[in-house]
Each structure stands twice: as structure tokens, then as C-alpha cells.
């Protein structure tokens, strides 16, 4: 389809228009942004359907050259990125619409929509990239948009710190990706994905090099997708406006890490070590983040840890050869997590409070938000027949089929924890008899939530054992060599998953009343509440360590190098003074100098000329 290049251009136009007419647009910026991203979504749908009919396509143009190597820019459409495009533009469109209501009272609303447009441009550009250099360019650009939006309330010290942290921690990961790109270039002579995969499969690269490169790429994915140990930035990123959390820190950008592993799948699947690394990191992050989410009090932070945990699920799936499962969960997660964030935003908008222990009984004042939030909670908990149920099942089945039983058990346990913490949140916020003067959000905020709610219910039917594995079959038509498996799980697997999820919900219900009086503070609780003290650990080791090195070199610079330089300058000065001392005006001194000079010159001539 020829409209594919319009998909990134439209949001970019939105950004530029808003940037240059910012003072005049003010509130109308939201409408501009919504229309442009809506159009981009339309284009993405056209591209998706044309991919069903016409297959994959690739268009490239020259960018610049290093000697004989011509670097290109281009757009590529294949099943994986056509799906991503639809997700990104859809969620972006809905978040734009929602923000018209949510941000209505912010005087910097135009700036906000400008950033959203820039982000959507960068994210779609990333997804369309047919080569690693271009992908990296947009990879960094989405990072900087995230930084700008996390720091949107720039006057808040927490927002400033969070924005800085988000940028720096993800950049640590990005460097891994960058090094991988360098190594791949010198191994294959190209940044193009197709050339790279060809070399990998032809065995042109040694297995240990493949493993090294895959793990370096994975480091990039770990940073972006908030996987352990680079997860610390994502909860802090909740300092940004809530619609941003829904778009960037739940549905799209943080999923880019998962997407990257999926894009580079031919490379990853060539290395057993790399696959295991991905699976273990994902599985561990899933349960690790879920335990933290159990005890957090801030509604957005609970969702943030939940996102980390769910992204871990996706990584686990990819590492366990469950390509379809990973992408499938990425899709459904985008719907229900965006929904949950928007619902949280609706609550925050109504009560101006983020501590769930200070809320309660809100189902009466916010009935629609409560209902939609319930759908989101059920979907993420894997309640039967909702979207999350099918995708989570697919992940469990893949992990089990791959024979990774420890990780499988952890994943199953995570399902239980997820149901518990989500419903702990739900019951504390919406159940109970407290009354407050909260007002339900406006229609412009509720409509996007409603659409996401519908998708959170029906989104799972694109890939089920009952109706057909549409998604998997379609993903298999990728231009790149990807093996899509169809794991068959024993019947007890979905049943135990359902039981665990129901048990989690039940436990949350039982504890909801007790919890209302505050949680007991035992050491385990404290450890979880402080997120295993990982932030503190980093602060003492890495952050302090870097500064200490900085101070060391600063004093080295000041005293050793500069001291040496001053000594040198002093020497020059002394010589100059000695020189000027000679010029005392005494004719006798001058005569002496002239005479000795003459003697020396004559001697030299005599010696060189061979007169001796």
C-alpha cells in the first residue's frame, strides 16, 4: 500500500504544526493532534488489510554513504510490524482523544500534544524500519520523547529526577544495542535486516559471536522494556501525565524491547544461550515485579510494576520459542493495560489522589470507570474468555512445551500474584462504602476507555485453540525466517491457570476489608514495599561510584596536571625574567654577551669548516 509512509508523516506534521503555532493553538492543539493520529490509524488499518491481500513490501532510498557502503532509509511492511503499527496508532489516537479531556486545564496543553505527536512519529518510524541504523535512530527518539513527557511537569523535582533517570537507564541498554549494531556491521557489511539474517543463517558468523551480539541486543531490549536489572526507571516514569503512562509506558514504547527481540528472532533462535537468557530474564522479571506490586500504595506504581511483570511474560514467551505467544500477549496487553491506565487517570482526575488507601467506594460516583476498570482487571488476571486469558494461556503453553518447567512454575505463580494485586487495587479503589464528591469523567475520556474495554474482551479471539490460530498463521508469512510453533498444552494447564487466577481474586476480596485498615508492616512487607532496596543499592554503588571517580579525576586534574602545567609556566616566566634581567642597560654586560657570542660563532665555524 502506498499510504504506508503517511503513517509516520502525519504525526510528525501534527508535531510541527503545533510547534510553530503553539501560542495560537492552545486548546485546539488536542483536536489537531487527534485528527492527525486518527488519520494515521486509518492508514495503518489500510496497510494491515493490504498486507493480508498483497503480502510484504519494502521500499528504500539512499541516505548517505560511507565509501562504497550506501546507507538507506526506508519502510517495510510485514505481519509483525503491520500489527504493531495498528496497535501504536490506535492507542495513540485514543490517548490523544482522552487527553483533550484529561489535560484540559493545563496551560501547556499545546506542548503536551506536540510531544505526543513527536512520539507517535518516532514510534511508527521505529516499527517501519527495515534496517538497524534507522531502527536505532527512532529507538533513541522514542526514548527522548519519553524523557520529555516524563519531565512534563518540569517544575516538580520528582519529575525532573524521573525524567533524567528514564533517559540514562535506558541509554545504558541502548549502548548494548549500539555495540551489537557495530559488530553486526563488521560481520555482515550491512545494517539491513535481510542481509544480516542471511549471513546468520548461512553460518557466516561464529556461534559465539551470534550469542554475544544477541545478548547485546537483548541488553537494549532490557533497558527499553524495563526488565530486571534495568527496570528501575519505569515506576519512576509515572511522574509523567497519566495518558502518557498509558501510551508510552504501558502499550507502545516499553513494548519496543519485546518487539526488538521479535524482529531479531532469526538471530536469537540461532543461539540457545541467548534464548535461555531471554527466557530467564523475562521469567524472573515477571515474578519479581509482581511481588513488588503486591504492596505498593500508589495506583500508577502498581500498574507500572504490573507492566514490568507482563513485559517479563512476553520476554519469557519469546525465550521459550513462543514467538506467537509473545506477540499475542504484547497485543492484548496493549489494550488492557492502556485501559487500566486510562481508568486510573479517570480516577486521579476525579479525586486528585493516587494513594489507593485513601480511596474507596468510588464505584458509586464513577460507575462507568469502575465497570471498565473491572474489565481491565479481569482481562489481565486471565479471567476466562477475556483477551488476557488466551494470550496468557499461550505463554504458559509455550513455556511448558519448551520444557522450561521452573520458569513455567514461576509464570503460573505470577498469574496468581497478578490476579491478587490487581483486585487488591480494584477493591480498595471501587468497593467499600466511603463516599466522596468525585464526578465521573467526561465523554471524551470515557469513549477511548470504552473502545479499549471492548478490545480487552474480544481481542483474544485472534488466536485461540477453538476458532483458529489466525495470528500465528499470519505471522508465519513474515519475509524473514521465523519458525512459528503451535504448542499443545495438557488440559490441566488452562484449568489450573483459571483456578489460580480465581484464587487470587478471591484472596483479594477476603483481604480487602482487612487491608482497608492498613497493611501490617513486617520485614517482608517492608522489603517489597521498598522494591528490594534496588534503587538504594544502585544509588550507593553505581551513582556514588561514578561520582567518586569523577571527583578523583577532578582533583587529579586540578593538582597533578594543572600543578605540573603551572610549574612549566613558572619555568617559562623565570626564563623570561632572567632574560630581561640581562637587559639591564649596562653596556659592559652587553659587551660581554656579544663578545662571548662572537667567540662561540667563530669556534663553530672553525669546527664545522674543518679549519682545525
Amino acid at each position, binding site marked *: 500500500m502506498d499510504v504506508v509512509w503517511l503513517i509516520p508523516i502525519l504525526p510528525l506534521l501534527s508535531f510541527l504544526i503545533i510547534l510553530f503555532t503553539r501560542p495560537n493553538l492552545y486548546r485546539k492543539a488536542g483536536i489537531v493532534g487527534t485528527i492527525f493520529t486518527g488519520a494515521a490509524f486509518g492508514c495503518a488499518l489500510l496497510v494491515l488489510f493490504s498486507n493480508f491481500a498483497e503480502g510484504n513490501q519494502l521500499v528504500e532510498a539512499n541516505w*548517505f554513504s*560511507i565509501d*562504497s557502503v550506501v546507507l538507506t532509509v526506508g519502510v517495510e511492511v510485514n505481519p509483525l510490524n503491520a500489527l504493531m503499527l495498528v496497535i501504536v496508532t490506535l492507542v495513540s489516537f485514543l490517548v490523544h482523544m482522552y487527553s483533550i479531556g484529561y489535560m484540559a486545564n493545563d496551560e501547556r496543553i499545546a506542548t503536551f500534544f506536540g510531544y505526543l505527536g513527536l512520539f507517535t512519529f518516532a514510534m511508527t518510524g521505529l516499527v517501519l524500519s527495515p534496517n538497524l541504523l534507522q531502527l536505532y535512530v527512532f529507538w533513541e527518539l522514542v526514548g527522548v520523547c519519553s524523557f520529555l513527557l516524563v519531565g512534563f511537569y518540569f517544575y516538580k523535582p520528582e519529575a525532573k529526577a524521573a525524567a*533524567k533517570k528514564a533517559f540514562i537507564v535506558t541509554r545504558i541498554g541502548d549502548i548494548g544495542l549500539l*555495540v551489537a549494531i557495530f559488530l553486526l556491521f563488521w560481520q555482515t557489511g550491512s545494517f539491513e535486516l535481510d542481509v544480516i539474517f542471511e549471513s546468520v543463517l548461512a553460518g557466516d558468523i561464529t556461534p559465539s559471536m551470534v550469542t554475544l551480539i544477541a545478548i547485546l541486543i537483548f541488553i537494549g531490549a532490557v533497558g527499553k522494556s524495563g526488565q530486571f536489572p534495568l527496570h528501575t526507571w519505569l515506576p519512576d516514569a509515572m511522574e509523567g501525565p497519566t495518558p502518557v503512562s498509558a501510551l508510552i509506558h504501558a502499550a507502545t514504547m516499553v513494548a519496543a524491547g519485546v518487539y526488538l527481540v521479535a524482529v531479531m528472532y532469526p538471530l536469537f533462535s540461532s543461539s540457545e544461550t541467548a534464548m535461555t537468557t531471554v527466557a530467564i530474564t523475562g521469567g524472573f522479571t515477571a515474578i519479581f515485579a509482581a511481588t513488588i506490586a503486591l504492596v505498593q500504595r500508589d495506583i500508577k506504581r502498581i500498574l507500572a510494576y504490573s507492566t514490568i511483570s507482563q513485559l517479563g511474560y512476553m520476554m519469557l514467551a519469546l525465550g521459550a520459542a513462543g514467538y506467537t505467544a509473545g506477540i499475542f500477549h504484547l497485543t492484548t496487553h496493549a489494550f488492557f493495560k492502556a485501559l487500566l491506565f486510562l481508568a486510573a487517570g479517570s480516577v486521579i482526575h476525579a479525586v486528585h489522589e493516587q494513594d489507593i488507601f485513601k480511596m474507596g467506594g468510588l464505584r458509586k460516583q464513577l460507575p462507568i470507570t469502575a465497570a471498565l476498570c473491572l474489565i481491565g482487571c479481569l482481562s489481565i488476571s486471565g479471567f476466562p474468555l477475556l483477551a488476557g486469558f488466551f494470550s496468557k494461556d499461550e505463554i504458559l503453553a509455550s513455556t511448558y512445551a519448551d520444557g522450561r518447567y521452573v520458569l513455567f512454575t514461576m509464570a503460573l505463580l505470577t498469574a496468581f500474584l497478578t490476579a491478587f494485586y490487581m483486585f487488591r487495587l480494584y477493591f480498595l479503589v471501587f468497593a467499600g462504602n466511603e463516599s466522596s464528591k468525585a464526578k465521573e469523567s467526561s465523554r471524551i475520556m470515557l469513549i477511548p476507555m470504552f473502545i479499549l474495554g471492548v478490545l480487552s474482551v474480544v481481542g483474544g479471539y485472534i488466536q485461540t485453540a477453538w476458532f483458529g490460530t489466525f495470528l500465528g498463521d499470519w505471522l508465519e508469512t513474515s519475509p524473514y525466517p521465523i519458525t512459528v510453533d503451535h504448542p499443545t498444552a495438557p488440559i490441566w494447564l488452562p484449568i489450573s491457570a483459571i483456578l489460580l487466577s480465581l484464587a487470587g481474586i478471591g484472596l483479594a476480596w477476603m483481604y480487602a476489608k482487612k487491608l482497608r485498615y492498613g497493611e501490617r508492616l513486617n520485614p517482608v512487607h517492608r522489603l517489597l514495599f521498598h522494591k528490594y532496596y534496588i534503587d538504594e543499592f544502585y544509588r550507593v554503588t553505581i551513582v556514588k561510584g561514578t*561520582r567518586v571517580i569523577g571527583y578523583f*579525576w*577532578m582533583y587529579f586534574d586540578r593538582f597533578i596536571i594543572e600543578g605540573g602545567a603551572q610549574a612549566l*609556566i613558572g619555568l617559562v616566566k623565570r626564563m623570561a625574567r632572567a632574560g630581561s634581567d640581562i637587559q639591564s642597560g649596562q653596556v659592559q654586560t652587553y659587551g660581554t654577551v656579544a663578545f662571548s657570542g662572537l667567540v662561540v660563532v667563530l669556534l663553530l665555524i672553525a669546527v664545522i669548516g674543518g679549519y682545525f
Partner: protein
Amino acid sequence: MGGILTILILSPLLGVIVLSLMPANHSSVKMIGVFGTVLPLIVTIGVFSLYDRTLSGIQFMESYQWFELMTAISPNEPYPVTYDLGITGLSLLFLMLSALITFLASLAALRIQEGVKGFYMLFLLLEFGILGVFSSENLFLFFLFFEVTLVAMFLLIGKWGGFEREKAAFSFLVYNGIGSILLLIVIIVLFVEFRTMNISELTSLLQESASYEFLSGNTRMWLFLLLLLGFGTKLPIVPLHTWMVRVHIEAPIAVVMIHAGVLLKIGAYGLIRFGAGFFPEQLKETAVILAILGVINLLYGAFIALVQTELRAVLAYSSISHMGIVIIGVASFNTAGLQGAVFQTISHGLIAALLFLLVGVIVDRFQTTKLADLGGVASQTPLFAGFFLAAGLASLGLPGMSGFISEFLAFLGLFEAMPVIGSVGVIGLILTAVYMLRAVLAVTFGERKPQFDKQKDLSAVELVSSAILLSLIIWIGVYPAVLSNTLQMARTLGIGG
């Protein structure tokens, strides 16, 4: 178009002459000063549009017999000293950069209150020297013009600088004086040996005589190391850098714009044009050491920038760090690396000029560059904050801006032969983000200090200047072919990838 380069070099002197005829406190002194830089800019643009990108070799050649040196040793064979001008794609890019930044710096210098006439006269003299350096096709001329920049800079720092201006000026003179002596030694040895100072003749003579019929490998290595030291002082290479930190902190802002934006680049230019051009074999032999030096520069500057409490000091160490990337690119000695080195000099020139332009705004509005005293200015001066943030992001190598392309190419080049050194070096890219964001956010983000209420945002002149620089930074970042087409790296140096 004969003589256009002579016209270009002499064009700033017109301003000097006009200024010298005017009374010191005349109201239009500043205007003349600024117009004095417009003229060279126009001529440079003319040169740029006339330059034929499809041809290889030197263009706009001008060559005249100047005088002859008689020596007692061989009185019948005088050494001819010629006047040669000419440019390659490489020098053309540097000319464009110099003319543009000097023009913008002359606008930033409008804030200078005392000794305006003298300032602009020296300022234009400095431009005369810089344009000469980049147009010389002859080592003798190169050296002459190089010395002109030293004298002009010395006086500009010493008279119009900050509290410790005299110390800074002296430090500048000592280091650069020693650097230029080393350079002079190399020039004399080459002149005695080859009887020519024409750069392209020397390049081909040296490269043809690879069998060392003229100079032994050992001598060449010594000459190369002298060049490295000489230009390394200018670049600067750690530990030859302390003078440059002083200049960054003490010199008037407009002069720092030129210093960081253009003058440091003479070191890079010399290293690429003469170091790599004259002594490619020696460069290859020392590549590993050079690469390590580059990484040390990168990390050393970054670590120290991280703990500075003064914005200008942060930017000074940042410059050191960024020049490390130039060294890395040169050390890798393949097309990607060398292209990266040149891109980095141009890119850093633009970014440093933009950053210091904005530092000038900070000094003007808030009378301090201490990070702890600044903060939260984004709410009062959103335009300034936006440009400052953009400049910071460009400096930390954000894709879509020029800094990314240059860092990417330099490191790509380095990873071909020295992936381990490269892997240590990339840590610098993380540190750059850390110190740059720390500095930028300390100024713009956070709670607003009450004493900064009611500050004016960018004026029209400041806005246009910043916008010009930022658009160039983005243009190069988005469409790097604009540089690589002019540069034709392989052709300029006559080397392959």
C-alpha cells in the same frame, strides 16, 4: 575565479580598516564590527556554491612566487617560498563553519560594553587568521595565519576576559606557543628535505616516497609525533588540556564561541590534513595508542564534567570529551572513522557555538553560571529553555541531530579493528548523557528561583542566531549527505576504506 580565496582571506580586514578610522565611541562601531563578519560569510557562501563537488583535488588554486631563501650551505640553490592558496572539500567545510560562527559570535559580542572598537578589530583579525589557516595550500602560510590567531586570541582573552583573564591568556599563549614551535620544527625539516612547502606536493611526495628515500621511517615517526603533540595541544589531547579549560571559563562568551566552535578544530584539521595526509604509515603504526588516547579524552572529560558545579566548566570538559571522538575517528583510519572525525569537528563546532550562545544569554539574564544558583527558568523563558535543551540533546548525540552521525561513524570505524577499545569508549556515551542532562536540567527544570522572576526570553537576534545553528544541526543530522558529498573523504586524503 582566480583570486577569490585571497579576497576571502582579506575580506575581514576591510572591517579592521574602517574601524581603525573611526572614533572609539562612535555609535556605529558595533554595526561595522558585525558587518565586517558578514562580508566574509557572503564570500564563503560564494566559494561554496562555486565549488565543484564532482572534481577531485585542490580547487581555486592561487600560486605565486613570493621570495627565495638563500642559505650559506647551498648558495646556488635557493629555497623558493611561494604563496599558495587552495581548498579541498575538507577545508571548504571548515571555512563555512568559521565564517558562520564568527558572524554569529559577532552578534553575541554586541553585549560587550568596554573597548568595543578594539574588540571588534581584534575579532576581525582573528577571523582573518582563521580563514587563512583553512585556505592555505602552503605550510609557511598556514603557520603565519596560525600565529595570527594566537596573537589575536591572546589579546582578546587578556583584555576582555573574566576575573582571571590574564592567567588564562598567559596559559593559552604558553601552550599554544610551544605547540606552534613543534609545528615549526616539522615544517622546517620538510622544507629542507623537499624544498617545497606546498601541501599537496608534500603529500604526494611523502606518499610516493614510501620507500623512504627521502626521510627514514624513524625520522618520519618523530615528525609525526611532533605534529601529534603540536596539534594535540590545540585539540586538546589530555593531559595538554588545562589551558583550554581556562579559556572556556575566562574568555568573553563571543570569543569562546569561536574558540570552542572553530579554533580547537584547527587541531583536528591539522591532524587529519597533515598527520594522516603526510604520515599515513606512522598513523597506522600508532593507531592503537591514538585510539586509547581518544578513549581517555572521552572518558576523562566526561567524568570530570560530571562533578563540575559551574556550567562553563561542564561545557569545557564536555569539549575535551567530544574531541576524544575526533581522535578515535582518526585512529581508526578507515573511511567511516575519518568521516566521523570530520563530522564530529563540524558538529561539535555548531553545537558548542549554540551552547555558548545560550550561556551568554544565561550570563546576561541571571548574572551567574553556577548550577546551584540556577534552576526552573523554563517557566519564565520557555524559548530559551527549549533551545538549551535541544542543544544539550544534540551534544549527547541524539539521533536526528549532527552529533549522532559523527559519534556513530567514529565508533563504527573504531569497531572494525579495535572492538575492545571501542567497548570501553562507548561508556563515554552514557556519561555524556549523564553530565549533559544534569547540567541542562539544573538550569531549566526544577523549582523556579524567586530572584529570576520577570526575565526576558530570547531577543530577536538571539532567537535567529540559535535557530540558524539548531537548524543546521538538525539538517546535518537528518541529511548527512550534505556534508559527505562535499567532503568526499577518501578522495581528499587519497586513501581507500
